[in-house]
């Protein structure tokens, strides 16, 4: 009996870990692209919240999860557009604007939710899973990894897509040059501002999508401040990954396991305050940093607005 219980428990734990990891993965991949292009995007938490709220509203009123993902991504892009205008085009301080956007969207989404839904928190129906044949029959691993919504597999595929983009394509090289030596990119005849704008808007789309997934699939509802620091975790993941998309995936899964452990332990009735378990992922990363913390390889021009002809 206990064997059966632990098997079910374990696969539920891993299933939850993947669900918790996907928004972090999307945010981390987005932030990574921004950072490669030289824009430190602290507004990503705000972009996720915009995505979560608009994604929820879209899915709630249309009844279609995919439309929800679309509106969520659009919400993220809308916020990213402000960021791109202010920080890339006219070069305002990225940290000031990023924090201001996060604060503003925290307030705005909570406000809109209040006026739209008052104090009710309507739920969406559970998302349909795309069951992968054969693989999903493997005990424990099958139900944990191969019975998710289609977008989960797409997000994981995106990791490899990003890897290809950075290593094999012109756009990928342009993005990295925009963060490492923007002046050189400019001399090569590529518009730095445009390259960085593409990066920031993509970040917005991915963060918005991550937020929409968090609200629509992960929680099934929207509550104010639902992202609860997920965007900041995305920043941490992007910085830890040293420019490699695959490490964002590993990091997101590590955080996912810890987050899922929190809920699993409560369900199992183990009496540890959630705060202790919530500390686990951060503790793990800090220990990793203390043990392996060498010089981080951040792009040289990260956080510096590009102005042609400026010294």
């Amino acid at each position, binding site marked *: 009996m206990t064997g059966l219980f632990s098997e079910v428990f374990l696969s539920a734990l891993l299933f939850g870990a993947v669900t918790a990891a996907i928004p972090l993965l999307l945010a981390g991949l987005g932030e990574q692209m921004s950072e490669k292009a030289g824009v*430190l995007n602290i507004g990503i938490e705000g972009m996720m919240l915009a995505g979560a709220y608009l994604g929820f509203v879209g899915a709630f009123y249309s009844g279609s999860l995919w439309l929800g993902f679309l509106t969520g991504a659009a919400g993220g892009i809308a916020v990213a557009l402000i960021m791109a205008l*202010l920080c890339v085009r*006219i*070069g*305002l*301080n990225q*940290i*000031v*604007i990023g*924090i*201001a*956007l*996060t*604060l*503003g*969207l*925290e*307030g*705005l989404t*909570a*406000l*809109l939710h*209040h*006026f739209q839904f008052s104090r009710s928190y309507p739920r969406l129906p559970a998302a349909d899973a795309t069951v992968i044949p054969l693989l999903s029959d493997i005990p424990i691993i099958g139900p944990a990894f191969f019975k998710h919504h289609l977008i989960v597999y797409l997000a994981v595929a995106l990791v490899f897509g990003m890897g290809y983009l950075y290593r094999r394509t012109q756009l990928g090289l342009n993005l990295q040059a925009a963060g490492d030596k923007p002046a050189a990119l400019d001399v090569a005849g590529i518009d730095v501002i445009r390259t960085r704008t593409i990066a920031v808007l993509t970040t917005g789309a991915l963060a918005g999508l991550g937020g929409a997934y968090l609200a629509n699939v992960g929680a099934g509802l929207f509550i*104010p401040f639902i992202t609860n*620091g997920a965007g*900041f975790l995305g*920043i*941490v993941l992007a*910085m*830890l990954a040293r420019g490699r998309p695959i490490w964002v995936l590993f990091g997101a899964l590590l955080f996912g396991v810890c987050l899922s452990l929190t809920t699993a332990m409560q369900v199992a009735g183990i009496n540890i*305050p959630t*705060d*202790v378990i*919530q*500390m686990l992922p*951060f*503790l793990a*990363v*800090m220990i990793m*940093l*203390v043990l392996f*913390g*060498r*010089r*981080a390889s*951040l792009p040289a021009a990260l956080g510096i607005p590009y102005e042609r002809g400026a010294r």
Partner: protein
Amino acid sequence: MSIDTAPAASATALDATSGAATRRDILHRLLMTIGPILAALVIAGCILLAVGVDPLAYYGYVLEKGLFSPLGIQQTLTRMAPLLFLAAGLIVAFRAGMWNLGGDGQFLLGAVTAAASAPVLVQILPAWLALFCSFLIAMLVAIIWSLVPALLRAYQGVNEIITTLMMTFLGTSLANVLVKLVFRDPGTTVPQTRTLPVEDRLPRLFETTITSGLLLGLAAIIIVHLVMTRTAFGLKLRIVGANPRAAVHAGLGVPGLTIAVFAISAGLAGLAGAVDIIGVQGNVRADWNPAYGLAVIPAVFLARMNGFAAIGFVFLLSVLSIGGESAARRLGVPNHFTLVLVSIVLIVLALAEYVDHRYHQSRKA
């Protein structure tokens, strides 16, 4: 707010003829601050209109409750105390080029340890000594908390944005664990620390409800400003901030200075927590996190890390948050609107500064 371009401006101001120019500069700065704030209020007002709330009524309450009513202005000035300490800590860090984004964790740990120690200490020590010791404990705990990011940055070159963010998440959770498990008041059912009796808290100023912590905060930020602009130590920190490699070549002990910067910055954040608890709250409830740090960071930037300008921006933040809280209760607009308002003010101010800068450049050319 005239000393924004700090050392250069004050050096030329010695010139006797530039008195009028300085006055014009002050006027210009004031206009450049008030104009954008009014513009931001209009934009935020449109959002209020969109959700069906009368913006004039809302702003009326904010002004009345945050600025013009006797009780409101006292609350506003009281709210300034912790914000000033936080701003002072950020000024040191940012001028030295270190992104201490872990202010909230340091603040909460300072608050919790102050809340835990003060009620015990007042029973065995004279009141002033007890409060002094609690302040000291809060400061030390926050400094210890900043040690890991400081050492990693100083000796391993690990980016402090990651580490301080991580430590702030850890610190927030740890503060909760401490409140729920270690320092919990056995006398109450809600998880919170023991309450410091009102008569043992920091004295209030004169006949008002304003905490004397305000004076401590003002002193802290002015001292920090003077140290950073007028002393050799401050100059060293600014060199590290401007160009760490040049600082090494100039023979400065960069690792030691890095640790000092983190210690000062975190210590001030810890004091911010202590001043809020010992001066105002009296205890810490579980899951209490006002997240002041995040709002103070952009304000310090907009003040160009100038202590006096930062006082002005902190005052503005306090008016908006105190006024917004009571306007929210009266008009049924959730308190979250204050966040929107603060955010729009910050963005419009940053934009105005850019436009102003551009205008001056084109006039020079």
